[in-house]
Structure formats: structure tokens, C-alpha cells
């Protein structure tokens, strides 16, 4: 058994081990990107934990992650279930629906910006025509938050759809026939038959998506840069801005570490669920 994971462990330690230690060392110093600076102990951590900006970013990260994970899961699972049924040209749909995942984010974020940014962009024009006024999708903090979350769901649902499809592939249709004989409605079949069968895979996809969302830098950064003001500032964007724009490297990296620790705790809790859900 050890031999089976040995290559993976070796690679992980080699590539991630050193940067992890180095980053931790940076988080205890007040250096720049090049020079280490002087040792400041846990001051960077306490600075962050007592800063309003940090907590605001943390709360947006939470919203972004919850919407990202469950939004993309609901859409992905729904589409995967729909694609299991008989639909003409099913294969074409399946390929087309994977596209949002494939487009480089620097390009899709530009497309979104093109759709909403100015008053002459198509979507504000559409809203105007429908008599819904002209919401400032990127300039109004409320709409900017919604837009970023919707964009994240748009990018992520194909992954969830693929995970769900692969898991559903192992569900035997005869299970449903049995359920139907027992008079279960479609919803009941989903709740009591499908979901339990794909539970482990679902938990794993939740864990993965949680990590993707919390760590997601480009989606937010390219669309809003964390703004307007700091409405869509997430922890990883905050870390980036601190490290690379403000060159407050220690503080930025310590944000990343706090984030990572919380993430590891959440992942571990979810992982326990997986074990419980073992068949």
C-alpha cells in the first residue's frame, strides 16, 4: 500500500514542502518579496485578526464559498440528472455545457465586463428596455457581490456536473424502478435514492469546491479587483494585494496561513462525513 502512494507523497513534499516552510517563515517576518526583513513573531497574525478589513474579507469569502459550492453543485447535479434522461443531441449539450470551465478566466471575465460594465453594454440596455432601471452591476457593491458569485457558479458548475455524472454513472437504474414501484415521487427518489448513493462523491466534490472557492484568485481579481471599495475583497485577494501591491509580504502571507488553517479544519470535518457515508 505504501508503494502506491510513495510517488505522490514524494512529489508533494518536494514541490509543496519547501514553499510551505518558506512562506511560514515569511509570515513571521516583515520583509519584502526579496529580502526576509526582521523577525516580528506572531505580530502579522495578530494585526490581521484585529483588522476590520480582514474580517470583512473573511465574511465575503464565506458568502462567496457557500454560494460557489452549493450553487455550482445544485446546477451541476441538476444538469447531470437531466443529461441522464433521453434527450436528443445529448452529447452535444454535454460538451457545450463544459465550455464555461474551459475558457481562460482572463478571457471570460472580459466577456462579463463587456456585457455589464457601461450603460451602453448589452445587459444594462436589456434591463432598461424591460423597465427594470439600470443597475450598476460592477459599480454597486450589492450587485458586484452578486455578479462575482454568479460568475463563480458559471465557471464551476461544469466541474460539478462532471463529478456528478461520473458518480451517477454507477447508479443502477433498477434502483429507481424499485422506488417507483413503491410510489416514490421524483423528489423522494432524489432525496432517498440518488443522493445517498452518490453521497461520498458529493462530499468529496464539496471539499474540492470549497478549496477552489476559498483559493480562487483570478475570478474575483480580474472581474472587480476586490472592489468597489472592498465589497468583493476575499481573503486570497486581500493576501495578493498585501503581498504584491502593498509589499506587506508578512501580513499577506499570514492571511494565507490563517485561511489555510481554517480550510484544513473544514476539509477535515467534511472528510469525517465521507467516512461516515462509507457504504
Amino acid at each position, binding site marked *: 500500500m505504501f508503494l502506491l502512494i510513495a510517488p505522490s507523497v514524494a512529489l508533494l513534499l518536494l514541490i509543496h514542502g519547501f514553499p510551505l516552510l518558506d512562506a511560514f517563515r515569511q509570515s513571521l517576518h516583515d520583509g519584502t518579496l*526579496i529580502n526576509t526583513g526582521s523577525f516580528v513573531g506572531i505580530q502579522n497574525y495578530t494585526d490581521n485578526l484585529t483588522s476590520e478589513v480582514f474580517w470583512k474579507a473573511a465574511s465575503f469569502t464565506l458568502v462567496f464559498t457557500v454560494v460557489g459550492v452549493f450553487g455550482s453543485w445544485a446546477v451541476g447535479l441538476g444538469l447531470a440528472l437531466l443529461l441522464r434522461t433521453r434527450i436528443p443531441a445529448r452529447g452535444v449539450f454535454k460538451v457545450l455545457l463544459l465550455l464555461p470551465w474551459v475558457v481562460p478566466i482572463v478571457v471570460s471575465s472580459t466577456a462579463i465586463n463587456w456585457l455589464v460594465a*457601461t450603460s451602453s453594454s448589452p445587459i444594462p440596455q436589456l434591463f432598461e428596455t424591460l423597465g427594470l432601471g439600470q443597475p*450598476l452591476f*460592477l459599480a454597486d457593491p450589492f450587485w458586484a457581490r452578486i455578479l462575482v458569485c454568479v460568475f463563480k457558479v458559471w465557471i464551476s458548475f461544469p466541474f460539478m456536473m462532471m463529478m456528478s455524472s461520473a458518480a451517477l454513472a454507477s447508479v443502477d437504474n433498477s434502483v429507481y424502478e424499485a422506488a417507483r414501484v413503491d410510489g416514490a415521487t421524483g423528489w423522494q427518489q432524489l432525496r432517498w435514492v440518488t443522493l445517498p448513493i452518490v453521497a461520498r462523491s458529493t462530499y468529496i466534490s464539496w471539499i474540492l469546491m470549497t478549496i477552489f472557492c476559498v483559493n480562487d484568485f483570478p475570478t474575483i*481579481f480580474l472581474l472587480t*479587483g476586490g472592489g468597489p471599495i472592498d465589497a468583493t475583497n476575499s481573503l486570497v485577494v486581500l493576501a495578493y494585494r498585501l503581498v*504584491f501591491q502593498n*509589499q*506587506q509580504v508578512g501580513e499577506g502571507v499570514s492571511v494565507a496561513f490563517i485561511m489555510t488553517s481554517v480550510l484544513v479544519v473544514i476539509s477535515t470535518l467534511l472528510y469525517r462525513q465521507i467516512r461516515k457515508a462509507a457504504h
Partner: protein
Amino acid sequence: MSEFRMPDMSRRSLLRAGAGLALLGGLSACAKSKTVAAGGDGQVVFWDMPWAQDSYNKSSDALVKAYKPADGLPAASLQRIQWNNFTTTFSSALASKTGPAVSTGGGFQAFQFAEEGYIATADNLVKKWDAEGFTQDFLPGTLEAMKTDAGYVAVPWQTDMRVWWYRKSAFEDAGVDVPKTWDELVTAGKALKSKGYVGFGVGAGAGNNLGAHTMVLMMINNGGGLFTPDGQLDLLNERNVEAMEFVIRLVKEGITDPAAVSYTSDNQLAQWKNKKFAFGLFTAALDEGVGDTTGDLLVAEPLTGGHGDKVALAFGNNIMMYTNTPSQEGTEAFLDYYIKNMKAFWQQKVVNGMPVLQSIVDLPEFQASENKMKVIAEYQPVARTYGSRSTSLFAAMAQVDGGQPLAEFTQTVLSGKTDAKTALTTLEKGLSAIVKS
């Protein structure tokens, strides 16, 4: 309910894994022959950014290729570095000694790396140019802006000027004159607004610094600024408060674009192109960016501020030398060649920035552009930069200019939902954490 038919799946997957490893082996072989270290093969490595369209890249490649070093000096080679995340690219290269011998880059990068001890000053080169009389060719203020307590950290090659532009037809439509003072800016703005135009076109969206530059320019324009002459942060002075109150007033009067806080520079270009923006700050290349050849987009006079100051804001793009070089003499010889021959960029019209050499301004190709000549005539003489003479302060300018506090401050002011004092107090707090020394 069909089973996958995969005879020999196992063997095939092993073969594939084998093929993958073989591929890696192959890649590894090329990797060894291609590893880069500054002057690894004795050449002067020059890192250049994509300053303008692809034609610029071709032109600068040609310029470097045409360099014939004197006897015993190394040849030069060029690598194109992308803007995206360039601070990381430079920092990681310097830290691992795989960086260039000479490079362009961010406007404040040379000051920052000088502070970290990676820059070779250009003092010898400037001395040589003094002896030749070549320093006279630099436009006033351009070369001096690179001088610090430690010497010349770089030499300038073009100026990135912030310029007030206007759309002639929009002003005709609204029946007002192009503003020359702040008061006129308000009057014109109201008239333009009634016709559906934006009279103070700015943008402060993702990755767009132009809005922040507008704020700083307005402060300087009113006799204020970010720093005192001796380099102390000084945000809450009366002039700054007044200037920001003025901007907030423009916002509240509806003279700005309500979505300005989210505009990227591309959105700004789009608003100019769609004839929404009638007046506003941009780089010196707005007409080229919009693709307007009708002469409807024109350079306005620098505005005169509330207390009679007439100023412009400039960023000196420069070329810096690094201590990690195969030969300092070789690097200097290359830089000497490059600066003296870079006029080709303006002759071929492949760059958008303003030249720093009088001999380039005098080129017929440059004289042909009325907008650019107006910038040289009216903006260049009153141009100011961000900071003061102290290196350590300049070292922090990159973070001040591109950092989070100034960007958020700009968005706060442009949202109009604040008062100047509160916004400036937050900015001072944010900047003082960055400008530690």
C-alpha cells in the same frame, strides 16, 4: 447499463505512464540546455515589457539585434516580460540570480530595487554623457527625476503623461467652452450633463490606476499632494481636503459617470469611443487607443487649480541596470547604444509614450502629431512626479501607486458617499503602514 470494453486497460495505462515519463525525460533534456541565468552565456540580458502593440516588440527586437558591441564587450539579447504579475517575475529572478543585466519595467521599480541593493547606478554613464554634451538632449526634469541620494538609479526612455482630453463635438453640442480652470470644469460639466455627456471622465476599476492618478493630480493641482517636500506623508492638509471635496462635489452634481468606480481602462476607452465621455484624464495615447482619426479628440490645456497652480502628472518610464551582470562595462555600453538609437520607435510610430529627448521631439514624424506636440509644449514644462528626493520614499512609491489604500480611497471618493476628511484619514492610515520609513 453498458460495461466498458477495455481489454488490456492495465497494460495500456502502464504504457501510457511509461510514455509520460519518457516525455518528461525528453523535456528534461531540453531544459538543461536552455536554463537561463543572467549572462549565463556571457551576454547582456535585456528584459523589456510589451510597451505597445506587437509592432513595438518587433522594433525593439530589431534594435537589440543590431547592437554591435565594441571589442571585448559582450553581446546583448532581449527577453519579453509580460505585465501580468511582473513584480513577482522580477523579484523571483533577482532573488535567484536569474534576472536581467538591464531592464525596463514599472516606473518606480528602479527605486525599489535600489533600496534592496540590486541596482547598479548609471552615474558613470551620466558622467560620460555630460562629457559628450548628450545630457543636454534630455528634456528638463526627465533625467533629474532618476537621481537619488545614492545616484542615478536608472535612465529615462519615455514619459507616461497624464493628459486632459476633450471631445470637440460634445462641447459644441452642449454649447460650452473647454474648461481651463476648476470653476469652468463645474460649469462645463453641468452643461455637458444636461446633454447626456460625462464632464469628468475617470475610471477606477480592476487594475486601473488612472482614477488614482486623477485624485493625486487634483491634490497637486490644488497645491497639495501626498507628501511634504521632505518626504513625510501629509494627506490631511487643507489643500487636499479642499481638492477632494471638489471631486466629491463633481460626483454629487452627476458630472462623473455613476459606474466610474468599476471602469477598467478599456471601459474608459469604450466610453470615449461611444461619445459618452466629453472631458477627462487619460494617457497621452487616447486618440490612438480609441482609433479616432477624425480630429474630434483633442488635448486640453492643463487645468488651473483652485489656487492658481497649473500642473501635470508624469511617470518616468526608465531603463535600469542590475548588479548581477557579466560585465558592468558591457551593460553600460549597451544602454548607451539603446538610448542613443531608440528614436527608431518614434520614427516608426510604434510607441505611444512621450519622448524624453529633444532630438526625438524634433523628428518630423513626431512633429506631425498635433496632440503630442501640445503635450510636449504645455504639459512637459509643468509636469510633476509623485514624490520627493529621498530614495527610501521612492522605494515605496510603487506600493503607493499600485497599492490597495490609494485604489480604495479613489473608489470611495468616486462613490460620493463620504466626506473628504474621512476618506483622507483612512488613506493616511493605509499609506503609513506601507511607507514604513
